[in-house]
Each structure stands twice: as structure tokens, then as C-alpha cells.
């Protein structure tokens, strides 16, 4: 085992003997992978932001017109006990009317009304959760006694969710296509390697090498190239994020907010490396399966067999 490892290392050294071609390949793989992986990171960040924003979502709860102060009190206690609600704010109908007068400049029109058309209302601040959960909460609250209507201000959240879904699909398509490209790159590289090592393969077959023995260094090569390409992609993404964060820090100061793009998590980094390594291995495997059987040993290279 140790020996075959030494042999494989020797083969790998010869394969990486042309550093320019090798590093160009790795660069191409790195760029190809950094596109979907980079978009994935940006999406992750966007999702984090959305989650933060939906934490400030609120449900407006309008009570029935015939509800009195007792009903309101009962409802308030009920809402405060609810596990999915973090805070409740009561807006009395008179207070609401005052607000309306002040904020809209419709004081004259409203003053002309002979009775207050506004009901008592609660502003419910739910605990942060996904949009569907909030929607369910709204439905539940609407069914409470003396509640006329519950309104979740969620249209924007839906739009964002849809946008994120779209983004995820784009990343998926991009990742699939570029994975294929990575496999194709490795396939072709290995094909060339096999052609240049034709003599060695032929001799090895003649002196009793199994297909596994011949295949192994090429698979190692494909996997190594994929791994290095993945590392290159990681480097590209990390440097890009650092540059973006540098720009964002200026922006954040202007808006007086803390806004930082998160890097690839260790788990995602590992996934990226393993995935690209696997793709390289797969491309190599396909190439070897396709091309190795074509090389059959001949005793006399000069004389054609047919």
C-alpha cells in the first residue's frame, strides 16, 4: 500500500510537472465554482437579513365596534399569555382618532363625524418567525372573541421570500451547469494526461498492472485538482467578501447601522471543498473509464494488427 502510494505520488508529481497549465486549470475551476458559491453566500446573508426584518413584523388586531373596555382587557390578558407573541400594545379608539387627525391633516373632516368610526385595536408584535407561521398566527387571532379583523403586514415579506426562492433557483441552476463544466474540464485534462502517458500505460499493462493500478493516479489527480480548484473558489469568495465588507463599512456609517456580510461558514467551506474534490474525481473516473480501454498493449508498435 505504501508503495502504491509512493507510485501515485510519483505520477502526480509528473502530472503537475507543467505548473502553468495546472494552475490555469485550477484557476478556471476556482472561478467556475466561486460564482454559484459566492451567490449562495450572498443569499445566505439576504436570508439572515429577512429573518431579522420579519422579527419586526406586526399584526394589527381590530376589535369589534360593540366591544367594551372589559372585553379589551380580557383580550389583552389572553394575548400577553400567548407563547408566539412577544409584546402587545393597546390603542384605544379615541387615541387612534387623535393620531389620525394629527397625521393625516384631515382634522376638519374627522371633526365633522358625529361618532368615532375607529374600533379599539391592539398592535401585536409576534416573536420572530417565518412568514407562514405569522400567517397562521394571524388566522388564529382573528378567531378570538370580539375580534373583527387581524391584519398581517406581510406583503413585503412574501415578495422577499419569493425573490429569495428565485435566487436559490438561480444558484441551483448555475451550480449544476458549472459542476458539469468542472467535470468536463477534468475529463479533458485527464484525457490529455492519458494520451501523454500512453507509453507508460501500455508498458504497465504488459507487465501485469491491473486497471485499478493504472486508474488510481488519474483519480488522485482529478480529485486533487478539484480540491485545489475548490480552495481557489474559497479564496476568491473570501477575498471578495472582505472587499465588499470594506466598502459596506463606509456605507454603514452613513446609515448609522451595523451591516456586515458573513463569510462562508466552516461547514459550507468544507462542503465546497469536498464537493469540488468529488466532481474532480468523477470527471477523472469518467475519462479513465472512457479512454483507458482504448490503450491495448502491442508488442510491435510499428506493425499494424489489421
Amino acid at each position, binding site marked *: 500500500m505504501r508503495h502504491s502510494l*509512493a507510485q501515485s505520488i510519483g505520477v502526480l508529481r509528473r502530472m503537475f510537472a507543467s505548473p502553468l497549465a495546472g494552475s490555469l486549470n485550477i484557476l478556471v475551476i476556482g472561478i467556475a465554482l466561486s460564482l454559484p458559491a459566492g451567490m449562495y453566500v450572498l443569499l445566505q446573508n439576504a436570508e439572515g437579513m429577512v429573518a431579522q426584518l420579519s422579527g419586526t413584523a406586526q399584526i394589527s388586531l381590530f376589535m369589534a365596534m360593540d366591544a367594551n373596555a372589559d372585553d379589551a382587557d380580557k383580550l389583552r390578558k389572553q394575548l400577553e399569555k400567548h407563547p408566539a407573541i412577544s409584546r402587545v400594545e393597546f390603542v384605544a379608539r379615541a387615541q387612534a382618532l387623535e393620531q389620525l387627525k394629527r397625521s393625516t391633516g384631515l382634522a376638519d373632516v374627522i371633526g365633522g363625524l358625529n361618532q368615532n368610526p375607529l374600533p379599539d385595536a391592539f398592535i401585536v408584535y409576534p416573536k420572530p418567525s417565518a412568514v407562514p407561521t405569522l400567517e397562521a398566527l394571524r388566522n388564529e387571532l382573528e378567531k378570538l372573541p370580539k375580534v373583527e379583523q387581524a391584519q398581517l403586514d406581510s406583503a413585503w415579506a412574501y415578495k422577499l421570500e419569493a425573490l429569495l426562492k428565485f435566487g436559490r433557483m438561480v444558484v441551483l441552476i448555475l451550480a449544476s451547469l458549472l459542476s458539469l463544466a468542472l467535470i468536463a474540464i477534468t475529463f479533458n485534462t485527464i484525457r490529455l494526461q492519458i494520451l501523454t502517458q500512453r507509453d507508460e500505460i501500455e508498458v504497465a499493462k504488459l507487465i501485469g498492472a491491473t486497471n485499478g493500478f493504472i486508474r488510481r493516479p488519474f483519480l488522485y489527480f482529478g480529485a486533487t485538482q478539484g480540491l485545489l480548484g475548490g480552495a481557489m473558489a474559497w479564496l476568491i469568495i473570501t477575498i471578495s467578501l472582505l472587499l465588499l465588507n470594506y466598502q459596506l463599512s463606509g456605507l454603514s456609517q452613513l446609515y448609522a447601522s451595523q451591516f456586515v456580510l458573513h463569510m462562508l461558514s466552516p461547514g459550507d467551506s468544507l462542503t465546497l471543498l469536498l464537493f469540488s474534490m468529488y466532481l474532480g474525481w468523477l470527471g477523472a473516473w469518467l475519462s479513465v473509464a472512457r479512454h483507458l480501454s482504448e490503450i491495448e498493449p502491442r508488442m510491435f508498435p510499428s506493425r499494424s494488427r489489421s
Partner: protein
Amino acid sequence: MIAFNQVHKRYPGGYQALKNVSFEIAKGEMVFLTGHSGAGKSTLLKLIAAIERPNLGSVLVNHQNVGVLKSRALPFLRRNLGIIFQDHKLLFDRNAFDNVLLPLQICGFDYRESHKRVRAALDKVGLLKREKSNPIALSGGEQQRLCIARAIVNRPSILLADEPTGNLDAEYAQEIMAIFKSFHQVGATLLISTHDESVLQNTDVRVLALKQGELQTTAGATGHSAGSRQI
């Protein structure tokens, strides 16, 4: 050790390379295979190494019918054979030592044992001092001897040599033949093809003569063959 039984070989183009060839080579025998080029010598050797398969008849090597071996089993057949090629088939991307090391790497020998064996093989053919040289820097005779070292390093029971002296001048050819004889003395089975009848002079080994794909009645051999035919 090697037995051909009514072997026919026709190439896809229709060329009949071997016609009804039958012979046996006993363990430890040294046999020459002669004939003009195109007589079928290489085809015969290819059939033994299962590089080609017969259309008819059977080829037995070590009691194994190699004509019907699964391709997965071929590597293990070939590990029992040492093949010496006319064009050497050396690898020019590594030095002499690593060329001889290759069969041992393939068989998975451990590091120390394989290095010992490589040195022994190189010593046997007189190339120990050239172990660091690239084969391209070696003369034709030295390249042939390196090829022999690679063929014997695995200590195969059968050695096949395809025109081993074909491109060499007489002096080198004598050297090579002397090496073969020394293997014969330690019990290896050898089958050596040659179109050069001069190397057969002063030898008393058995000769298989091929002519247009047919085996001539065993000629040139002396009484030696009769004795060694028992298996």
C-alpha cells in the same frame, strides 16, 4: 509449462498468422523460435502473453488456458511472464532504476525489498553503475539489458524475448545470449524469438522454426530436446 494445441490465428484483415501450431515447452527449457519476419514469431509470443487470442485451438501457460482468460485475470498471468521487447519499451521519463522498479510497484512489493531486487537485477545485467541514468543516455545494447533487468526483476518463471538481439551487433548479441543462458541455468523457462540464425551456432538448444505461420518439423535441435520434453 507452455503448450500450444492446434492453434490457429487469423487477424481481422484476413491475414493468417499461425496455422495449426502445436508444441510443448517443458519447465526449465530454453527454446529458440526462428523464422523470417512475418513468419508468425511475434504472434506466437503475443498469444502466450494473451495480447492476442487464438481463433482456434488452445494455448496453455502453467496449465491455464490463456485464450479464454477473463481480462481481469490477465494482469496476474503477465506477472508470471518476463517479456523482453525488441523495441525495449523503456520509459524515458524516469531513470534506469525506476524503470526496473515498475513491475515491483505493480505487484505491490514493499519499499526495501523492491529496492534490493532492483539492484540485484541491474547487477545481473551489468548496469548497476548506470542506475541513475535516463534510458535515453544508454546504448542500444545497454537498453536491451535494462529491458531484461525489468523482465527478470519480478523473478518470473517464464521469460519471453522478442528478437532480443535484433538491432545489436554481434558482440552485444553474444553478451545478451550469455545472460539468457545464465537464467536457463538457474531454472527459468525461456522462449527466444530470433531471425538471426548465427546466434544458434554452437548451441545445442531446441529450435522451433516457423515458416509462413506453420511450424516446421523441429529442426536444428539436437538430442537435447528429446530429454527435456518430459513434463
